[in-house]
C-alpha cells in the first residue's frame, strides 16, 4: 500500500457519484457518493434497510441507477447486466456465495468459467488443470484446503467465504465487492475472513466491504461510507473518523444517545419506585 502512495493514480479505481435509485415511489438510495482506490478497502456500513443491498446490486449491474453514475478509472460506465460488470473487473461475492454445496471445491471454483482443452466436439473440461489451479490459488491465499474433491457443503462458513474470495481474485477481479462476509460468522472465523480481505487488498485489488459491524470494518477499512435509510450519513477517510465516532454514526448517532437516555431514565424510575 505504501508503494502505491508514491504514485497515486489520477483517478480512483471506482468513483460513485450521487447515485439514486427508486422503486416506484420508494426511495431506496439517494445521493450516495464514495471512492475506491486500488489496494484500499472501502467499507459500506449501515443497519438493516439502510440501502446496502441496493448499493451492491447497482454496482454489480443487477439494477441501473436512476440518477448519478459510476466512473471506473475516471471513465463513466453503465452496466445493464451482471456480466458487463464482471467483464469490467467487478466481482461480487454475494452472501449466498453462489456455490453449489454438493459439488466439489474445484468444480465450484471454476463454475461458469471452466478451462477447456481440445477442439470442436472434443472440447472438454480440463479437470486436471482445474484441480491444480484451485488447489494452488487457495494455497496462495493461505487457505488450508484439505481435499479439493470435498463437496463445498462440508466446508465451514469462513472457509466458503475464503474460497469465494479466492475465486474472485483468480478470475482477474480489480474490484471485489463483499456482501456481509463476516456477519454470520463467529469471532475467530470472522478474523480469518478479514485476513483474506487484507490479502486481496495487498494484491492491489480495490475492495468494497459491506457490513453492519463497525468493529470488523474499522481495523481493515481505508474509507467508510455510512448509510441510513437510503441516505449517506457521510463518506470518510480513516484519518477523519475514529472507531467510536463510526460506531455512534452507524447506530444512528443521536438515536443511540436518545435510546441510552431512555433506558437510563427507566432504570432511575424503577429505582425511585422501589425507594418509595
Amino acid at each position: 500500500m505504501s508503494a502505491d502512495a508514491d504514485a497515486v493514480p489520477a483517478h480512483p479505481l471506482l468513483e460513485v457519484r450521487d447515485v439514486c435509485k427508486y422503486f416506484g415511489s420508494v426511495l431506496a438510495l439517494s445521493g450516495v457518493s464514495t471512492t475506491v482506490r486500488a489496494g484500499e478497502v472501502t467499507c459500506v456500513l449501515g443497519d438493516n434497510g439502510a440501502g446496502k443491498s441496493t448499493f451492491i446490486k447497482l454496482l454489480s449491474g443487477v439494477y441501473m441507477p436512476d440518477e448519478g453514475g459510476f466512473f471506473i478509472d475516471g471513465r463513466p460506465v453503465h452496466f445493464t447486466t451482471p456480466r458487463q460488470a464482471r467483464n469490467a473487473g467487478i466481482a461480487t461475492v454475494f452472501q449466498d456465495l453462489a456455490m453449489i454445496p454438493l459439488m466439489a471445491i474445484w468444480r465450484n471454483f471454476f463454475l461458469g468459467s471452466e478451462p477447456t482443452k481440445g477442439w470442436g466436439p472434443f472440447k472438454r473440461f480440463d479437470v486436471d488443470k482445474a484441480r491444480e489451479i484451485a488447489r494452488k490459488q487457495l494455497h496462495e491465499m493461505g487457505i488450508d484446503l484439505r481435499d479439493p474433491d470435498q463437496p463445498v457443503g462440508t466446508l465451514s462458513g469462513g472457509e466458503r467465504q475464503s474460497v469465494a474470495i479466492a475465486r474472485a481474485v483468480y478470475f482477474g477481479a480489480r474490484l471485489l465487492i463483499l456482501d456481509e462476509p463476516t456477519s454470520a460468522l463467529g469471532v475467530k472465523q470472522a478474523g480469518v475472513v478479514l485476513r483474506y480481505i487484507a490479502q486481496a487488498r495487498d494484491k492491489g485489488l480495490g475492495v468494497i466491504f459491506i457490513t453492519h459491524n463497525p468493529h470488523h470494518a474499522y481495523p481493515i477499512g481505508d474509507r467508510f461510507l455510512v448509510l441510513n435509510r437510503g441516505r449517506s450519513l457521510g463518506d470518510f477517510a480513516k484519518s477523519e473518523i475514529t472507531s467510536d465516532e463510526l460506531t455512534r454514526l452507524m447506530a444512528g448517532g443521536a438515536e443511540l444517545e436518545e435510546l441510552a437516555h431512555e433506558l437510563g431514565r427507566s432504570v432511575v424510575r424503577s429505582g425511585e419506585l422501589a425507594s418509595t
Partner: protein
Amino acid sequence: MTTVARRERPDKQDERVVDVGTVRRLLVRPELGAIIGTAVIFGFFASLSDVFRSASGVANWLDPASTLGVMAVAVALLMIGGEFDLSSGVMTGTVGLTIGLLTGHFGWNVWFAILAALVLALSIGFLNGYATERTGLPSFIITLGTFLMLQGLNLGVTKLLTHTVLVEGINRAPGFPLAQRIFASTVEIAGAEFRITILWWIALTVVATYVLLRTRAGNWIFAVGGDSRSARNVGVPAGRTKIALFMTTSGGAWLVGTMVALRLTSVQANQGIGDELIYIVAAVIGGCLLTGGFGSAVGASLGALIFGMTSQGIVYVGWDSDWFKFFLGAMLLLAVVSNHFVRRYAERSHK
C-alpha cells in the same frame, strides 16, 4: 494425534484432517449402491438358474435393460439437472405412432418418418423445458400436463386415422430394411442373439458419463440441479442447460420409440404409458437424488440392468412373474434408504 499427512501436501499437517480413506471416498460415489445391487441380484439369480447364466439368458435380460437403459440415462441427466419429465414414457409411444402413421398410413419413406418423429420429439422436449423455465413452476406439473395431452393425442389421432388402436405396416415402407438393421437388428455372439439396442445403450452411457464428468456442460448440469440461482449468478446459462436436458430426454424417447416401432413393425396407441416411472426408478436406484445435483449415468444404467435381470430372472427361476413389481418396489425403497444413509455417513466423515 490421529492426523495423517495427506498425499498432496505431506509438508503440511492439519489436526482436523482424519484420513478420508479409500473406502469412504468410494462410498460418496453415487453409483456405489447400484454396483452392489447389480452384483447381489446377478449372484442371486445366477446361482438359482443355469439359463440365467447362459449366453442366450444374458441376451434375454440385456434386451429389456437396453431400451430402459437408454431412457434411464437421459432421465438421470435431467434429474441431476433438478427436473422431472413425466411425459418421457408416453413420448416413446408418440414417436412410434408418428413413424407408424407416416409410413403405414401415408406411405412415407421410413427415414423421413424417423426424421419427422425426431423433430416432433425435440419440439415437445423444448416446449417442456421452455414452459418450466419461463413459468418457474415445478416440471413435475408441467410434464404431467404434457403426459396427459400426449396420451390423449396418441389415442385420438390413431383412432381418427386408422379407426383402430393399432398402427401397422411399417415394414412395407421404403427404407425399412436398413433402418431395422440400425435400430432393431440382432447380432449373434456365442450362439445367442444379442439385440443391437444393447450397443446403443452402452454408447449412450459412455457419452453421458463423459459429458457429465469431463465437459463444461456437465459441470453446468450438476450446478443447475444443485442450486440454479447460484449457478446463474456465476454465469451458467441455466435456462439453456435445462431446456437442453429436456430435449435430451425427448431425444432418448425418440430413440427408444424408433427402436420399438421398427422391431415390432406395429405400434399400440397406449405404448409407453407408465414407463416414465420405471425410468425414474432406474435413475434413483442408480444414485440420483430426487432433489437434483447428484447422480451418475453409469448408476442409472446399472439401475436399468437390475430391472432387466430381475424381470427375466423371476421367470427363469420359475416364480410367478406377477410378483415382479413387488420386488421392484422393495428394491427401490432399499436403494433409496441405503443411498441416503451411506451418503450421510460419507459426508459426516469429512467433518
